[in-house]
């Protein structure tokens, strides 16, 4: 192999690497540096002083919000998976000539910004709205109860907003599924259920893993849904970081908390990938083996 050929991979890596360095490593450096400062914004500013205490300080009193973020984002991810899998399956195999139309319908909400869509839910779920009265009639919501400004509204908002991120990787994965394998399973006397569990589901693991990551990670850090659809006692960790930055202007503690949350998410993702299996995460491997 000539030198030129050996350098090709580096050439191809270049733009991505540069992107990562400029928009990830450099900001991380500044944030890390900020997290180790001390002082106050209004008197003298923040001065670098290796203030490691910012890290434990930033966590104190925010345990509730961290647990709540896990609970909200986790529930939203599970709900999104339960909604998205059958939908993606139907689009891939049962939609026929409506396939493109349905895919378009999945993506269509993106034509309106995230913020506006979430604000729209405020109106849809307001206490006197028809939807809430129907839910009250069905006794899904107590007579004097409400939907807006509850944990349920926040979870619903997260599920709604991140659902396409679950559907699209699942669809991409299901669409490439070789149906003759399912047929073969049935030929070998497996029931539909067995065929699904032993063939379809394992083969679509890469899509599930990708979808779960794409949904859970942004949902965990989200603060818009909690702010607009939630009430008191429903703040997520993103709201705390926002408050530290904008309202308390404690930049070092906010940076420290952001760092810790990134580390936490990274740890969770690493565990998850180990659990879900690297093969599934890397994509085609299983499929290739199966073939």
């Amino acid at each position, binding site marked *: 192999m000539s030198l030129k050929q050996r350098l090709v991979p580096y050439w191809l890596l270049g733009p991505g690497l540069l992107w990562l360095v400029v928009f990830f*490593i450099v900001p991380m450096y500044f944030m890390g540096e900020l997290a180790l400062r001390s*002082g106050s*914004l209004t008197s003298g500013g923040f001065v670098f002083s290796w203030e490691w205490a910012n890290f434990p300080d930033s966590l104190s009193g925010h345990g509730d919000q961290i647990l709540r973020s896990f609970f909200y984002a986790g529930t939203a991810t599970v709900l999104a998976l339960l909604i998205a899998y059958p939908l993606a399956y139907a689009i891939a195999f049962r939609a026929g000539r409506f396939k493109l139309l349905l895919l378009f319908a999945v993506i269509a909400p993106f034509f309106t910004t995230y913020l506006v869509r979430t604000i729209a839910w405020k109106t849809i779920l307001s206490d006197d709205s028809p939807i809430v009265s129907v839910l009250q009639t069905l006794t899904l919501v107590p007579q004097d109860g409400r939907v807006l*400004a509850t944990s349920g509204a926040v979870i619903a908002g997260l599920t709604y907003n991140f659902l396409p991120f679950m559907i699209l990787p699942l669809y991409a994965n299901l669409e490439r599924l070789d149906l003759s394998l399912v047929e073969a399973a049935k030929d070998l006397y497996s029931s539909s259920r067995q065929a699904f569990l032993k063939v379809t589901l394992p083969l679509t693991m890469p899509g599930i893993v990708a979808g779960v990551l794409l949904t859970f990670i942004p949902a965990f850090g989200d603060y818009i849904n909690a702010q607009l659809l939630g009430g*008191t006692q429903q*703040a997520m960790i993103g709201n*705390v970081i926002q408050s530290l930055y904008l*309202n*308390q*202007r404690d930049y070092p503690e906010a940076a420290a908390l952001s760092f810790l949350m990134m580390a936490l998410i990274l740890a969770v993702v690493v565990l998850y990938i180990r659990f879900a299996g690297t093969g599934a995460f890397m994509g085609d491997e299983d499929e290739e083996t199966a073939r």
Partner: protein
Amino acid sequence: MDTGGTRARGAVLAIASAVALVALILGLAACGDDTVGGGSSEKVTTAKGGPVSGELTISNWPGYIDPGPKGTVAEFEGKTGVSVDYIEDINSNDGFFGKLQPQLEQGESGGRSIFVVADYMAKQMYDLGYLQEIDHADLPTVFKTLAPSLESPGFDPERKFSVPWQGGMTGIWVDTSKAPEIRSVNDLFDPKYRGKVTMLEELRETPALVMLAEGVDPATASDEEWLKAIDRIKAAAESGQIRDFTGNEYTEDLTAGNIVAAIGWSGDASLIENKNAEWRMPTEGCTQWSENMVIPVGAPNTPAALAWMDFVYRPEVAVDITEYVEYISPVQGVKELLEKRGSPLAESEIVFPTEEFTSKCTGQNTPPDLERVNEAWQDVLTG
């Protein structure tokens, strides 16, 4: 092979230059001012007056002017030829300051030439060097028609950097069809209204009103008294009594019928589409405040900004603003003009509060240990 070698060297060169670029960025950043925050080191400048033209960007709170084609902004554009970008992007003093602070620190105002902020915030910005001073000679109308009581406030005795925009009171908005009996801030804690009450996010409003309701004067309250009031609010938030803490959003909740009462601002009628909504002076008193137009550092087109300030102080313009927003005008002669127009607002105690009406009210007070009390307050907001 020869050309391949050249290209390979090119590749190495490209990667090396990319690394060098990154090192340069890091190096440049490291060479800059090493302190984050602490105020601008530049000297205080005075906003330049002069011929008026071009574009002007104004940041204000929602519902503070008629931004429509027949409103005050359009009138100013017609009279001066200045093209105004009027943005309603201020929802809370602290939130707005937090958003703009990094830019202001760099001597930038994000293209804005005028902000409207509360007294304490104007002072805080000025002390950090984020505001320009104003030459009274550029504002002849302002200093002719400004109400005498506003000429020399404690935070800016010579009106060096602030010009009042509107004043108001913080009290209780009540949906009279659903909870006509609410008159005191203590009533908001009545379990009857569980989940049907909102309160403002502002430290200087909500805990202060709760203190007033308990007979404590916020002007002289100790940190412990502030924290006690905050604890009471916290307990109400945890029990579900308080539905949410809001900025201007409480007006939407009142419109949609989500709540029966809210702590809110006296002049927000234009934002509330609910004919049963009524602002009430709490029985134990309100907080009174005024908000100011200020010119930030780095503001483009300061001549137009000064022209705007002077324009809104013409009584015939100020009366339009009052009719639309229903806040307390700092301009003399508005009441007479309203009477001439036969507007019921001329008799309104909310627009022209008498001393008797506001006898129990207090200003916007800051707790002795702001950082500690604010942290406790923010913990309640993000509970």
